[in-house]
């Protein structure tokens, strides 16, 4: 099946090392989202799969086959670019069938495929138009159609929705998910938008500076992060992180896991603080509470607490996450866990 495997991938641009002996597997049929800050290497990896920005060393396997030296056209992958990369001087039809024509697909077959795919994508009635006369969303669909018509083993997408307006982005997101469910082909999707990542992906690969921080399902990444970077990258507002006195070890909890009460509660972790700011968002309210020199964000369904009032924050033990001096997670099974928990 169309599993993708990276083996000891290194990528250098001149002297700059972007990826260093990276190993990774992408599950067949998954909708894998690669996410991370700018420059983390996610797009680089995508382009390595496509063969348009080949690795400096290392191997890439698709479906068990070594595609490392193959030209892009022979890899059986399709890509949707951020800026669509639609050929401006060709009609929509010519754009979609360009690859088929180059692969000597007979005319009748070509026309059938183009018609079929363009109907699915919703551009069936614009085949004779030029891209310059179409909107961004429509151009994106052309790019999608062009990719689909290749019937590839893998769909690669490089931030395809980032140039669309917000409303279109949301609807296209759903369409892409439906497309994936329908085709059941492997999707590798690069984005920097965590909402997209969390809502679309079956698997998430979080990267930073060329290193994979964590690969897991959205749920696991959210609730059980491997390290501090992951914990803080995913989630809005960010997870609250507080250091133990004079220590590089820290603990954290998500804003929505904090209980606010007027009287001290029966929680494992209880502190008394003052509400510094209050943001009413309608369905929920975000408070900033200060105590002992710490500033903690709280997401609550209660909007009754007033600014400058005294309040008690409470967090259940299971919702407190520990991170050691190397920013790695200390889980309950870890021998060090109890020691630090007692300090709270």
């Amino acid at each position, binding site marked *: 099946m169309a599993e993708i495997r990276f083996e000891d991938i290194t990528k250098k641009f001149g002297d700059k090392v972007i990826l260093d002996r990276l190993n990774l597997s992408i599950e067949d049929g998954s909708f894998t989202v690669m996410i991370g800050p700018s420059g983390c290497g996610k797009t680089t990896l995508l382009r390595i799969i*496509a*063969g*348009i920005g080949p690795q400096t060393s290392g191997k890439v396997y698709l479906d068990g086959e070594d595609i490392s030296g193959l*030209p*892009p*056209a*022979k890899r059986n*992958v*399709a*890509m949707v*670019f951020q*800026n669509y*990369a*639609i*050929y*401006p*001087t*060709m009609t929509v039809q010519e754009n979609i069938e*360009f*690859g088929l024509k*180059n*692969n000597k697909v007979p005319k009748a077959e070509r026309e059938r495929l183009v018609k079929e795919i363009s109907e699915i994508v919703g551009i069936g009635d614009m085949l004779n138009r030029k891209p*310059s006369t179409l909107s961004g969303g429509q151009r994106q669909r052309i790019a999608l159609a*062009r990719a689909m018509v*290749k019937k590839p083993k893998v769909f690669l997408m490089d931030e395809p929705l980032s140039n669309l307006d917000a409303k279109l982005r949301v609807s296209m997101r759903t369409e892409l998910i439906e497309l994936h469910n329908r085709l059941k082909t492997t999707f590798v999707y690069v984005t920097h938008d965590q909402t997209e990542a969390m809502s679309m992906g079956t698997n998430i690969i979080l990267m930073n500076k060329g290193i994979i921080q964590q690969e897991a399902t959205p749920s696991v990444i959210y609730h059980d992060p491997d390290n501090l970077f992951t914990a803080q990258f995913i989630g809005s507002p960010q997870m609250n992180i507080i250091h133990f006195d004079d220590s590089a070890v820290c603990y954290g909890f998500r804003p929505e896991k904090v209980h606010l009460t007027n009287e001290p509660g029966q929680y494992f972790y209880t502190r008394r603080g003052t509400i510094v700011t209050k943001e009413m968002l309608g369905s929920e309210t975000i408070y900033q509470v200060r105590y002992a020199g710490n500033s903690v964000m709280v997401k609550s369904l209660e909007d009754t607490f007033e600014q400058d009032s005294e309040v008690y924050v409470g967090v259940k033990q299971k919702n407190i996450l520990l991170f050691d001096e190397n920013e790695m997670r200390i889980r309950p099974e870890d021998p060090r866990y109890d020691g630090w928990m007692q300090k709270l």
Partner: protein
Amino acid sequence: MTDKSIARPAGYKTPWEKLRPYIYILPAMFFLALFTVYPVIDMVIRSFEKWNLVATPTWVGLDNYKYIFNRKEFIDAIWHTVTYAIFVVGLGLSLATLFAVWLSKSTFMNNLTRTVMFMPHVIALLSVAMVWAWIMNKNNGLLNLVLNFFGLPSLKWADSSDTAMMSIIIVALWKAIGYNTMLIYAAIQNVPAELYEAADLDNANSVKKFFKITLPMISPQMFMLLITATTGSFRVFDTVRVMTHGGPGTSTQVLVYYIYKQAFILNGKVGYAFAAAVVLMAMIGVLTLAYFRVLSKRVHYQ
């Protein structure tokens, strides 16, 4: 004097403010009127007159035109100019496109080659013509020495009516190719790299990529280059003056040279010079108009 255009009803301008832009464009308009508009009108009017620069001109209607169009020398001049333009532009642009694509990657060798090729463009045409006249000298010139070295016979280059036109075309090409290549290269740089990447995924080979992506994408700049190169070729003078004086005989006499001769060498024939100049302007005008016409249709735009 400062204008504080804050506390006033919108759209209101003082007389000074209304006048200001006109004053700003005044010097430019004055010089343009004096040295472009007036001479053109003057030239057109005088082309209908007989004049020897001294006495008062007399109106002769289309006589001047009839005269020059009946003269083989004039028709030849047009023909020479057109031939020259076709070769210089045709060869110049196709070779330049080839070079631009071949040298399009930014490597040391490519950058060096492009930079060296461009240099003749900033050198005076006079000097270019002179050094090539020397290189093409039929007795002692380097070119014949090289030909002889390879066992080929010497050519008379600028001294023979068979090879003179070829000689000035070579000189023009040598001067212009680097410039054309640079321009086309710059246009190619503006084509988004992503298009080529998508084409790679679409299994397009280099030839396909050139004709289906590169060429259409640079067609605006190519077209403009085509027009400017052609109208520029119509205006050639320096090379002819330096290398051949329009000869041998009149084998390399181009239109501008003909005009110059009629106006300054032959006495009392200024009317003919004006008529010929009007023809030259018409040729350039027609081309430029064609440019703007075709611009809106065939050239591909984003």
